[in-house]
């Protein structure tokens, strides 16, 4: 019988009573990690590529990266589409000041930059900033509130 099978047999039949301790656990774990590291290092050394292979791989990686970047940029440009006015395709912030966010000037710039959608975005933004938008309150709530 091989040593591995011996051990299996020993565990199954004899059912050993091993008393473990913190020191014993630590030693076992340390030995296991050391054995694992050795195995990994040995495997890495086996699979280490040769210098020409490294050069070829490096070129391929560079080419693949360049291709990804080119495809990415092309995709971005293709999906931008022409702006409403054809001046710029950017959806930049138009007016941040609450007092100016819905002026004719701000809305005109929003349109020039993003067409009708630009105006709609500006309106959305304004709704979050400008008021008043009270929560609903019923007559009953009003009267109850006034009593308290």
């Amino acid at each position, binding site marked *: 019988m091989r040593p591995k099978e011996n051990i299996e047999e020993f565990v199954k039949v004899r059912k050993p009573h091993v008393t473990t301790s913190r020191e014993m656990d630590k030693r076992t774990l340390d030995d296991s990690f050391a054995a694992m590291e050795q195995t990994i290092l040995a495997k890495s050394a086996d699979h280490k590529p040769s210098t020409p292979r490294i050069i070829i791989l490096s070129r391929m990686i560079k080419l693949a990266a360049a291709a990804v970047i080119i495809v990415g940029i092309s995709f971005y440009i293709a999906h931008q589409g022409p702006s*409403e006015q054809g001046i710029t395709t950017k959806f930049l912030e138009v007016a941040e000041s609450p007092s100016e966010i819905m002026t*004719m000037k701000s809305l005109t710039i929003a349109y020039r930059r993003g067409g009708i959608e630009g105006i709609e975005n500006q309106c959305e933004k304004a709704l979050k900033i400008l008021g008043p938008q009270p929560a*609903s309150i019923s007559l009953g709530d009003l009267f109850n509130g006034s009593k308290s």
Partner: protein
Amino acid sequence: MKTTTKKLTTATYVTLMLLMLTSPALAYPPDPDNAALLYYQSYIAYEKADDTMQEMVADLAMGKIEPNERIKKYIENCRGAINLALSAAEIPHCNWGLKYSDGLSMQMAHLGQVRKLNYLIIAEARILAADGANRQAIDRHLTVRKMSRHIGDETIISFLVSVAINRLADSCIRDILADTPQDLEILTGLKNELALIASRPLSIKSALKTEKEVFLETMRLENLKELAEMLVGGIIESDDKEAELLRTADESFVEKNRDYYSNYMDSFQGILSKAIVYETTYAKLKALSDKLQKDVAENPAATLTVAMAPALCKLYGHEVRNETALNAVRAAVEVYIVKAKTGQLPEKLPAGLPKDLFSGKDFKYEKTKDGFVLRCRGKDLEKDEIHQYEFKVKK
């Protein structure tokens, strides 16, 4: 005899006095005759929604999601605001009280609010349609159409917001009609209301008139700093030749630019006022626009026009697209009416229906498995496509 006459006269006077005193018309002041006053009240009467609810309402209005209990509850909480808007839409006159004398600094905050209100009403239309209340759903759609007319076309911005709202209304009515049984009374009512709305089309002509006046008033030497702030970095790049011209502008530069802009806008309006055929008008506007682009390379007087004048062909495209879409719905309603009367879709489009404005001809009608399609015969030259409108019929 004399006593009887006296008694009768007294009785008449007493009755008249009682009538006057008890008349409800005199009991309280009349309702506003300006729709804007009701809309403004409506804006402060709806429940504040968090971002998630706002998104859900918008998605429902656009037909992206089905109604759910949370949205229904929210819409119910906005009932006061919706009712005010429904009343406002029925008032013919609407004056938003915009302060045009502020020029480009004029506040137009009402547009954001009215747009939100339209989303609420369209969302409610879809809820009503889902619950089988098709007549009320159609009424809500009509309210939005009327509101878009109220938003108006006094400025290019308000014209564009109206167009955006109509787009929403178009998709909503197509979905409602697809689920509505062919009820002759409902359809005839819809047909008549749409005809009334179409009798006052949205036009960029009046918007251009206001735009021209506001911009000419701004195009003065004393406003040049503000103008440069708006244009440079906003519409033109800071390293552009136009930006440099603005930085070094003098009185003569401004005057020449005012003249150029004024003439350009007059030419634009001239072309539109003679507009008959879409293709010809588009070609003329394109030529005018191209000439400006050419001029600006060698004529500094065109600097402010190239930065401030609207894109002619695009604006004209919005107008034609908007009215053609409405015409398609009106023509479709006639087809639904034929179906309601005969039980069958017609083999060809009835005569004398609203037309495709890209070609000036009747829509091309084609029956499909689920209903029918109305296809334009002319191409939208700005979008480079032929529009088609699909309508489904409830089996």
